[in-house]
C-alpha cells in the first residue's frame, strides 16, 4: 500500500509543475457550464438576441429574488413549502419504514401487505388529488397527505428490498454467536439495511419536493408553488424562474442535510462512491491483493 502511494508521486514530478498549477477542485468544474451559459444568456438578452420578457436574463432573476427576499415575501413562501415537505416527508417516510420493515422481516406481513400496497402504487399519486380535496379540504391536510403518499412508496419499497437482500451469510454469523432476535436486529440487520434505507429516503425526499408543487398548484395562498402560479397569471417569467431557483437550492440543500446526517454511519461501504451507490453485500471481502 505504501508502495502504491509513493509510486503515484512519480508521474506528478515527472510531469513537471504544470498539472499542479492548473489543478482545480472538482466541484468547481461543475460550475463552468452553468456560469458560462448564464453569461451567454446575459449577453444575448442585453443585445436583444432573445426575448428578455419570456426568458429574463440572470441579472433580472437575481433582482427579483433579491426584492422578494428583502420584502420578506420569499421567506413566507419558503417556510410554508418547507413545512409542508417536512410534515409530508416525516409521515410518509415513517409509514414507509414501519410497513417496509414489517413486510421485509415477516413473510406473513409481506403476504398481507405487499399485494395491496403494490396495487396502490400503480395509481399515479396525483390522481388522488380530487379525492384528497373532498376528504381533507383544500388546506394543509390534503397537501401533507399527498406529499406523504408520494414519499411513502419509494421508502416502503427501499426498506423492504434492503431487508430482503441482507446477506444470509452474515445473519448466520449472528446465529453462531447465539444473538437474541433483538440483538440480531440491532447489531446486524439495522446496520446492514441502513445504506439502502438512506438511498430510499433520498428518493422519497425528491418526490416530496415534486408533490409539494403539485399540492400547491391545487390551491394555495402561499408557498413556492403559489409563487409559480402567481407568476404565470401575471406573466412574470422572472418570478417563475426565481421560484425555480429557490426550489433547486432547497431541494439540493435538504438532500445534502440527509446525506450529511447519515454519512458517519455509512463510511464503511465498499463502493466507489458510497453516496451514490447502493450497499455492496460483498463488502466484507477484502479487495486488494496484498497480504
Amino acid at each position: 500500500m505504501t508502495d502504491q502511494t509513493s509510486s503515484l508521486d512519480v508521474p506528478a514530478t515527472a510531469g513537471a509543475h504544470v498539472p499542479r498549477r492548473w489543478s482545480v477542485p472538482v466541484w468547481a468544474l461543475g460550475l463552468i457550464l452553468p456560469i458560462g451559459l448564464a453569461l451567454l444568456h446575459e449577453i444575448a438578452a442585453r443585445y436583444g438576441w432573445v426575448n428578455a420578457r419570456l426568458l429574463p436574463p440572470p441579472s433580472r432573476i437575481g433582482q427579483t429574488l433579491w426584492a422578494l427576499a428583502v420584502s420578506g415575501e420569499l421567506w413566507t413562501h419558503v417556510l410554508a413549502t418547507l413545512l409542508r415537505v417536512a410534515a409530508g416527508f416525516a409521515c410518509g417516510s415513517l409509514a414507509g419504514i414501519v410497513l417496509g420493515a414489517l413486510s421485509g422481516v415477516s413473510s406473513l406481513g409481506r403476504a398481507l401487505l405487499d399485494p395491496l400496497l403494490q396495487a396502490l402504487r400503480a395509481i399515479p399519486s396525483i390522481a388522488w388529488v380530487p379525492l384528497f380535496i373532498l376528504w381533507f379540504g383544500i388546506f394543509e391536510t390534503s397537501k401533507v397527505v399527498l406529499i406523504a403518499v408520494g414519499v411513502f412508496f419509494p421508502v416502503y419499497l427501499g426498506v423492504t428490498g434492503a431487508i430482503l437482500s441482507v446477506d444470509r451469510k452474515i445473519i448466520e454469523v449472528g446465529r453462531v454467536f447465539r444473538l437474541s432476535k433483538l440483538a440480531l436486529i440491532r447489531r446486524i440487520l439495522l446496520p446492514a439495511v441502513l445504506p439502502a434505507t438512506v438511498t430510499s429516503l433520498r428518493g422519497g425526499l425528491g418526490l416530496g419536493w415534486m408533490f409539494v408543487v403539485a399540492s400547491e398548484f391545487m390551491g394555495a395562498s402561499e408557498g413556492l408553488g403559489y409563487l409559480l402560479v402567481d407568476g404565470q397569471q401575471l406573466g412574470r417569467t422572472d418570478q417563475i424562474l426565481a421560484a425555480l431557483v429557490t426550489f433547486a437550492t432547497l431541494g439540493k440543500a435538504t438532500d445534502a442535510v440527509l446525506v450529511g446526517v447519515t454519512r458517519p454511519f455509512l463510511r464503511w461501504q465498499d463502493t466507489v462512491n458510497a453516496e451514490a451507490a447502493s450497499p455492496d453485500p460483498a463488502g466484507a471481502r477484502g479487495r486488494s491483493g496484498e497480504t
Partner: protein
Amino acid sequence: MLSIRDVSKIYPNGVKALNRVDLAVEQGEILTIVGGSGCGKSTLLRLLGGLDLPTSGLIEVDKERVSAPHPAIGIVFQEPRLLPWLDVAQNIAFGIDQLPKAEQAARVAQALNLIGLEGYGNRLPKELSGGQAQRVAIARALVAKPKVLLMDEPFSALDPLTRHELQGQVIALWKAYKPTMVMVTHDAEEAVALADRVIVMASKPGRIVDEILIVSGRPRDKLDDSFEMAKRRVLSALDQAVHGTGGSRKNAQSAGAGSWW
C-alpha cells in the same frame, strides 16, 4: 470431546447428504475432512456447528447434545463474513461483547498479535486483503475461547502462498488456544500439513470411507519424504473415494489401521 453417532442427513429433496456417520474427535485433536464435492463434508460441519439439524442420530460436544449453535463451538466459514460496518477490533470482539470492556480489549490485542495484524485494529474490512480478512475471522472465532473450532474450507479462496502462511498461523493459534479443531478442506496437502487425523469421505450417499493418522510432530516440512508419503496416501484414498468402487467404513478401518505415518 465431539461425538457423532449414527448421524444421517436427508435433505427435503431426497438427497442423502450423510448416511449413518460415526466419528469421535478427541480433546485438542486436529481433524481434517477431505472428500470430493457433494460428499457431505460441509453438511457434516454445519451439523457439528448446530446450524442444521441431523435427520437422525446424535451429535454431542462435551456430552451435551448439539441442536443449535453451542457456546463451546466456534465456526470459521469459507468466506470471512466480517461485518463491514465494524472495524477489525470490533469484528474480533463481536462474539464476546458480554465480557467487561477491559477483558475484551485484552483478548482482541492478544488475537491481533497472534494473527500478525497489530495496528490493524481500527481498519475496516474493506481495507483488508482476503488473507487478512480470513485471519480476522479466525481470531473472531477464537477470542470467545471455544473448546471446538470448526473450519469450512477456510483457505480455499486464497492463493497458495497466503494459504501456506495461514496454515502456519492456524497451528500457532491452535497452540495458543488449544481448541479441538475440525477442518474441512479439498486440499490433500493442507489436510496432511495440519491434521492429527485425516478423514476421507465419499458421496452418494455421503459417508466416511477412510481414515489416515498423521503421527509426525509439528512443524511439518512439506518437502519431507514422510510428508510426501502421507499426502500420497490421502490422495489415493481420495481417488478411490471419488472414482473407485467406494469401500464401506469397515474395510476403511482395516485399511486405516495399517496407515500410520
